[in-house]
């Protein structure tokens, strides 16, 4: 499966409003503790860090560990001061890196 993301921002954001940003990504979050049905050890494959930037400045970030379930979902709040490009960045094992960009317009 190719990497899919769901990014949810409110419509019509007013300046100064507290908004909720919700994102999820398709990822197996394989813990490294399991074995396949053939008995082979499944190597660890998790997202280690999620971060969200507005115009390059970090507004939210989180470290992830093997106990986080597959397809991790984040919901966080942000005080909308100005419009700009939101960058969502997921980084993980084996050089995993996925970036999504969404323009946030604040009136």
């Amino acid at each position: 499966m190719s990497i899919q993301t769901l990014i949810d921002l409110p419509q019509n954001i007013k300046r100064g409003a507290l908004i909720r940003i919700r994102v999820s990504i398709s990822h197996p979050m394989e813990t490294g503790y399991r074995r396949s049905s053939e008995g082979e050890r499944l190597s660890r494959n998790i997202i280690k860090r999620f971060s969200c930037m507005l115009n390059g400045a970090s507004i939210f970030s989180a470290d992830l560990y093997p106990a986080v379930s597959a397809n991790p979902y984040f919901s966080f709040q942000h005080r909308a001061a100005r419009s700009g490009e939101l960058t969502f960045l997921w980084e993980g094992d084996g050089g995993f890196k996925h970036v999504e960009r969404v323009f946030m317009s604040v009136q």
Partner: protein
Amino acid sequence: MISLGLRGSLSCRLSRILIHRDSSKWQALMAVFLTCVFSCSQAQTVLTLPTGEPQDARLSGFEFMGESTRALQLDASQNPAMLFVREGEQLWSALIGSKRAACRDCHGDANESMRGIASRYPAWDAAIRRPVSLSHRINLCRSRYLGLDQSQAESPATLALEAYLAFQSKADRITSVDDPNVFPWLENGHRLFERRIGQIGLSCADCHAHRPGSRLGASVIPQAHPTAYPVYRLQWQSLGTLSRRIRGCFTGVRADLPQPDGELMVSLELFLRQRAAGMLHEGPGVRP
């Protein structure tokens, strides 16, 4: 061995379904409901399912879930099954296989052509002269017309496409089985539903027709209506088919596992569809 073969009276079974709802609203509803059903049964007009359960007492597995799991299903930006729907949407138009063709080339825009398809599967396949489940049909189609090797049942691509098609049936009613070709399989499915299997010796009906609402370990037993397949099951951490869910029950009662796309499995799926006919299809749902 626990004897689970006995059936309670109609009202007993109904109260068993509803007794686990704790709010007074539900108790009041139950009283009204039982009165209605009782008066109806006096007049012999209650619609009953093949298993003898009253049709209007049917509840989707959704009704047995906790608040947070329900919220997860209802919100499209949270529902993890939507990740698979998006993948399916891209696969629908992707040029693949030896013929460099896409599903879209034959079927057009899925938003129109695939409306209500998922709610009338399993259905008859004329070429192999047996009913097939939706995921099986997707695989057959991909091998026949796109020139792909027949992909494994429940491969990621098949699952994503099935989720995409289920999404096109969201809020449609599951249709009743009306194709005479599949009636023998439907009957067989009914027999399988009632037949005790495995070392534990339970039938599907023992739990899902006679004891829904009670608990098996920590889990609430639902009525087993396939209203939201393929489902994102939190226990699986992934999307899965009805066939996978049924195999889970087979493992639970320690029975031999049926083939994912075999005739036994499709018979059972067909019977479950008939049993749920008229209920709402929830599109790809979430289950605990």
